[in-house]
């Protein structure tokens, strides 16, 4: 069933229109149902029993990524403002540690979102080739962040 997908699209429509009148609710629901009927997106599987745990993991994931992004932003700002421009760019291979395509893709998204690191290519077994501005100790720090992210993502995403 596509119930969860319809609900998500409906919430997105209501968020974008910011209007809770009955007519708008009905129009939003119709649009969500029509879109799902015609586009057949992959159904969102939500296990209601595991939902609270997954939501908690999602909240922690957001906090972890936000912290990473802010740290990266400050680090890149200092690099850019430094008169000597001490960048040591390079490409390092980081294993995503997960065979799931979703977990790998979301990890790559989080890495690219934080300034100073960017996934160029994804190889076999979820190996992420990551371009970083400062390669000196990027290895351990990114790999450590990746383990944390993978553990959280595996709790968020339902088993395949």
């Amino acid at each position, binding site marked *: 069933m596509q119930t969860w997908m319809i609900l998500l699209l409906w919430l997105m429509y209501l968020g974008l229109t910011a209007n809770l009148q009955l007519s708008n609710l009905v129009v939003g629901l119709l649009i969500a149902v029509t879109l799902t009927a015609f586009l057949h997106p992959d159904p969102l599987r939500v296990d209601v029993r595991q939902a609270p745990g997954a939501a908690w993991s999602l909240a922690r994931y957001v906090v972890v990524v936000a912290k990473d992004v802010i740290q990266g*932003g400050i680090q890149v700002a200092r690099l850019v403002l430094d008169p000597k421009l001490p960048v040591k760019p390079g490409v390092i291979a980081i294993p995503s540690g997960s065979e799931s395509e979703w977990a790998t893709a979301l990890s790559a998204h989080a890495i690219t979102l934080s300034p100073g690191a*960017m*996934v160029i290519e994804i190889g076999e077994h979820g190996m992420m080739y990551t371009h970083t501005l400062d390669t000196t100790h990027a290895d351990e720090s990114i790999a450590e962040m990746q383990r944390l992210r993978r553990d959280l993502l595996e709790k968020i995403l339902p088993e395949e």
Partner: protein
Amino acid sequence: MDEILQLIAIIAVVAGTAFSTLGVLGFIRLPDVYTRLHATGKVGVFGVVLLLAATVAWTPLGWSKGLVLIIFLLLAGPVTSHALSSAAYRIGIPFATAVRDDLAESSEGGSPEEVAA
């Protein structure tokens, strides 16, 4: 309440503009396309999101609209960075300076210079 919202808006505008300026500065100073993408990515993440936060705090734009827009931006921004860098690597744009390159040593890679030749 108005003062608090105004203060938040002012701080967000100043920080967002500062990060956008830093992004442009990095774009000018950094040596090659890959490192420059780091700087421009920062404009997308900090600059636009902070300016949107200020907009939500101090203009009639609804918070739900701002939230959905911020989520869309945060989802789509890294995709453009990745697509640009991946395309640049595949057409063989070399690194200006590279301390190490694990991708060239892997089976997936072939260094940019070799691909170009």
